């Protein structure tokens, strides 16, 4: 159980393994493209946050393999449920990157949200572990309807401590739903190390409690992430029930843009892990396979850069939402009477000056330094 699947080496002491069956050259390039796009989004988002153009941001730099690798294993009809850490995963499924940026800019409604059914991508989930039962419910419903769809959900090592993790795992195992529980074990939950989060040696072994397979994989290895996810989805589709995947890696970056990890951990350890980060590693691997060269990589990076640059322009072209947005889409069946009264009240007073995402709040206090999602 504690064997960690790794396919891509590091060009030094870790050997490369065979590319798994089912991945053609085209797929490898496509997967790399996904990694680069996610990376580009993330780096740009951090810059935007620094410039005050979006709010506090939960970066995922280094975790792209757990996201793009796993997603690439999904069929189009499979559903995915991200946490805040996989906030941009939708852009690999057709969600406009500008929508995700707008979400971080504090926009709601049609600007910052999407219709999950359009892309089978759940909304960004902020409260830890609460989206896990949704993934179970979706795959359970698909099973009831005799549809082929599975569901995959990402969450962190910290999330395994929540009751919702346990209840979701248990429901999935009892009803043998085709659900993949993809735990990104980056070994930190804000300032809390995994040793303070749990006493079990691995996260994968938590699957034993549910009579469910639990597998470990190198979370910085996109191909390994692809492989374990593909296997889990196949098993699920064949009626084999859910799987818990532990993607072992490290949170190379701060928890969020307001966090300073030097306060609570040894950053030389971080440097060690950083060498294994997935984008460079996959790039080198593809070079070793001569699937990639400078030109090709440059092209992929430029494309990603332009996509995200356009997304930033799109985001910034969105007018600051009006106050009516407060009352939109709350009820599908129609607006209750008090919403109209509330809008009247709002309309009768001068609107607070339009605020920049990180502009000073108009409140008297200001300056709480929240560090979290």
């Amino acid at each position, binding site marked *: 159980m504690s064997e960690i699947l790794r396919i891509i080496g590091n060009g030094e002491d870790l050997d490369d393994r065979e590319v798994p069956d089912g991945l053609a050259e085209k797929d490898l390039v496509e997967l790399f493209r996904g990694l680069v796009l996610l990376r580009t989004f993330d780096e740009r988002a951090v810059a935007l946050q620094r410039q005050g153009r979006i709010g506090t941001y939960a970066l995922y730099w280094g975790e792209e393999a757990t996201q793009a690798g796993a997603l690439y294993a999904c069929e189009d009809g499979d559903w995915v449920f991200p946490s805040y850490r996989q906030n941009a995963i939708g852009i690999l499924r057709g969600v406009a990157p500008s929508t995700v940026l707008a979400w971080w800019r504090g926009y709601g409604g049609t600007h910052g949200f999407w219709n*999950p059914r359009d892309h089978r991508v759940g909304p960004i989930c902020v409260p830890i572990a609460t989206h896990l*039962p949704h993934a179970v*419910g979706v795959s359970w419903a*698909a099973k*009831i*309807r005799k549809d082929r769809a599975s569901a995959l959900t990402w969450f962190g090592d910290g999330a395994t401590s929540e009751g919702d993790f346990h209840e979701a795992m248990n429901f999935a195992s009892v009803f043998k739903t085709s659900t993949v529980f993809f735990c990104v074990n980056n070994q930190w939950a804000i300032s809390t190390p995994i040793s303070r989060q749990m006493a079990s040696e691995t996260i994968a072994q938590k699957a034993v409690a549910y009579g469910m397979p639990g597998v470990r994989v190198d979370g910085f290895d996109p191909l390994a992430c692809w492989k374990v996810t593909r296997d889990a989805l196949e098993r699920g589709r064949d009626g084999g029930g859910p799987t818990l995947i532990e993607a072992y890696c490290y949170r190379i970056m701060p928890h969020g843009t307001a966090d300073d990890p030097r306060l609570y951990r040894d950053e030389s350890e971080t440097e060690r892990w950083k060498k294994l980060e997935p984008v460079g590693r996959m790039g080198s691997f593809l070079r070793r396979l001569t699937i990639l060269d400078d030109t090709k990589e440059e092209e992929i990076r430029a494309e990603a850069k332009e996509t995200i640059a356009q997304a930033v322009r799109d985001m910034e072209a969105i007018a600051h939402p009006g106050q009516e947005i407060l009352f939109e889409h709350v009820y599908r069946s*129609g607006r209750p009477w008090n919403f109209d009264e509330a809008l009247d009240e709002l309309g009768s007073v001068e609107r607070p000056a339009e605020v920049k995402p990180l502009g000073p709040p108009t409140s008297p206090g200001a300056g709480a330094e929240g560090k979290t999602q």
Partner: protein
Amino acid sequence: MTEPSVALATKANMVEALNRGLHEAMAADDRVVVLGEDVAKTGGVFRVTAGLLDRFGEERVVDTPLAEAGIVGTAIGMAVYGLLPVVEIQFDSFVYPGFEQIAVHAARYAWRTKGEVPASIVIRIPYGGGVRMPELHSDSPEALFVHTPGLKVVCPSTPQDARAMIVAAIQDPDPVIFMEPKRIYRAGRQELPDEPALGDGNGTGTKHLSTARRAREGDDLAIFSYGATVPLVLDAAERLSLELGVEALVVDLRTLYPLDVEAITGAAAHCGRALVVHEAPRSAGIGAEVSSLIHERVMLDLEAPVGRVTGYDAPFPQFANEDDYLPSVDRIFAGAKKVLDF
């Protein structure tokens, strides 16, 4: 496919009426599924889901593991996929472990998805005291949900309404907290019409979930209540009539969010005096909201402040003392008198 005998009875008590509504909703739409603890094989501890398993099969009528957050959470996922889950919470207090899923997801899924994917679930909660149960089987948590934006909160007080409202709640795209007054589950029987309709024949569809009902006409005092206290209010109203010659207009609120503000202010203004009655604790309860709404809108029509007769701001007692805790006809009568004597 056998219809259970309970659904064939023309005259039905509230349990049977709810059961009939569930049968109808499940028969009409195969996206409707029912899940909860002990709802399938035994038909629920109160038998509200009786016969559903036999008729609709174990994929659609599911005994779940014992985990309320898991039940509500997976039901939300099912709704996201396109099903219409109906969840049973076995007893009132056992909804608390599901509170996070309700507040952060059920209540916000439509809002979070541009209105495209509401969490179309119904959460049925048999609630309230009066049936001599051990600790934590008698809470009235409806105000918690009223204070949680994004939910509808309803509560029938008659078999007819129960049947019409459960069908409407299931068909309603929004999440509905469906409070069931367990104390009057078997209180009396009513003829159930062929088509689900509200007791006063008011419209259909979402109307079923937004209008109050006048349960008694009168000009002297408006009494607002819902659920298990409605019959007590009606008794008190009779006594007011007999003993004091006071005719109370009784409004069964039926929908607690959104409140039927016109019915409420209309009745209060008409009578000039008003009283709100519920068994949940007083502070920041439905009574406070109704009282505030009335004062804000029609204070000049009032001859006295709106009174409140409610449960107390103390834990629901062990059952030997529950009749002390619950609003009684006497307490309602006294509360009414206080408003009248002001």
